[in-house]
């Protein structure tokens, strides 16, 4: 079967060359001239570049595009092989628990997720027991409260969205479980937002309960500035400046949204190593199988009429 396929492809490749009709003994060549290839390359580059420029110029400009984009920060987990800083995740959890959790839920994260990521199993159990969780129904059909277990999710500050809105002037504090994925700019945006509060510039009127933040689309945000220097005390003794608090909570939220972050990068590295080896093998196999085709020469031998 393989021989059949090989023979037919070879014949297809070698067929329909005009050299034979001219009765000249030219060799069949599968390569074009170098200058021709360079011209093709430059030509397609020009066409492709022109298409990109034309496409970019044809885009309309929206007023909603005119927002302040957050700068790119040098996170220690930037880069294809860099893991999250777990000490920072732990400090960020302390910030979340003592500051953010007053208004924001994280209903998709469990206490068991913390085990061997930022704390031991015993510590995580102690953390869970601090929270009272509604469970039930019991034997008489009533709901009851019990201390949390490892399998419980983080408790929410409000029972539902309506209650959250009513308590916060109509603004809904979003769930923070996947907030880094849910916002353009990711952790850069969240860090800028947390540290970007200022007095409103002249001409900007804010309603009651609104605050000015240049990084928030529209500028008027319902959340007041939450992070100040020394607002909490870290258990590892790190000075709790405002930017340190914001950085740690961003790393914590990054982990919450992508708990597979570290192993994903490790497996990515392994996959690239294996696949680049296999690419070499495939290239060798191609060269090997094509040697018979590439080195074959066709010559026209004029018949001798005696």
């Amino acid at each position, binding site marked *: 079967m393989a021989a059949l396929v090989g023979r037919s492809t070879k014949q297809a490749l070698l067929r329909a060359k005009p050299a034979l009709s001219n009765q000249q003994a030219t060799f069949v060549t599968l390569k074009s001239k170098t200058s021709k290839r360079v011209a093709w390359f430059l030509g397609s580059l020009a066409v492709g570049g022109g298409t990109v420029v034309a496409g970019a110029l044809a885009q309309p400009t929206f007023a909603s595009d005119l927002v302040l984009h957050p700068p790119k920060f040098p996170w220690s987990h930037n880069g294809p092989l860099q*893991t999250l800083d*777990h*000490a920072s995740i*732990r400090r960020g959890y302390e910030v979340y628990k003592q500051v953010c959790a007053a208004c924001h839920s994280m209903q998709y994260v469990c206490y068991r997720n913390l085990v*061997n990521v930022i704390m*031991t199993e015993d510590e995580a159990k*102690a953390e869970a027991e601090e929270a009272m969780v509604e469970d039930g129904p019991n034997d008489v059909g009533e709901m009851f409260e019990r201390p949390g277990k490892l399998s419980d999710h983080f408790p929410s500050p409000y029972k539902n969205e309506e209650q959250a809105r009513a308590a916060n002037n109509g603004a809904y504090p979003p769930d923070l479980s996947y907030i880094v994925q849910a916002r353009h700019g990711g952790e850069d945006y969240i860090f800028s937002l947390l540290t970007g509060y200022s007095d409103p510039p002249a001409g900007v009127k804010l309603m009651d309960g609104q605050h000015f933040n240049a990084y928030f689309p529209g500028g008027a945000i319902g959340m007041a500035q939450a992070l100040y220097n020394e607002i909490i005390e870290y258990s590892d003794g790190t000075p709790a400046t405002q930017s340190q608090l914001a950085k740690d909570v961003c790393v914590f939220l990054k982990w919450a949204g992508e708990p597979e972050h570290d192993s994903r990068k490790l497996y990515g*590295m392994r996959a690239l190593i*294996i696949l680049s080896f296999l690419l070499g093998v495939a290239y060798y196999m191609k060269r090997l199988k094509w040697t018979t085709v590439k080195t074959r020469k066709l010559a026209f031998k004029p018949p001798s009429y005696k």
Partner: protein
Amino acid sequence: MSSLANLSKNLYHAVFRRTSTFVIAVVVLAYPFERAFNVGTERYFRFINKGKFYDDIKGQFGQDAEEE
């Protein structure tokens, strides 16, 4: 003939020449290769990210120190 060429020749005749021995070699070598590759890559990964893993920060926090 150099020893390397000798080795590769012996290897070819002993293993790669027959499909039966070749398949056995693949099956037998898969496990040690997988172990070595996984352990090696993880060790490198932990080396370039030293200090950022949970194992590196165990016991640095107040509660840990009290328990110990």
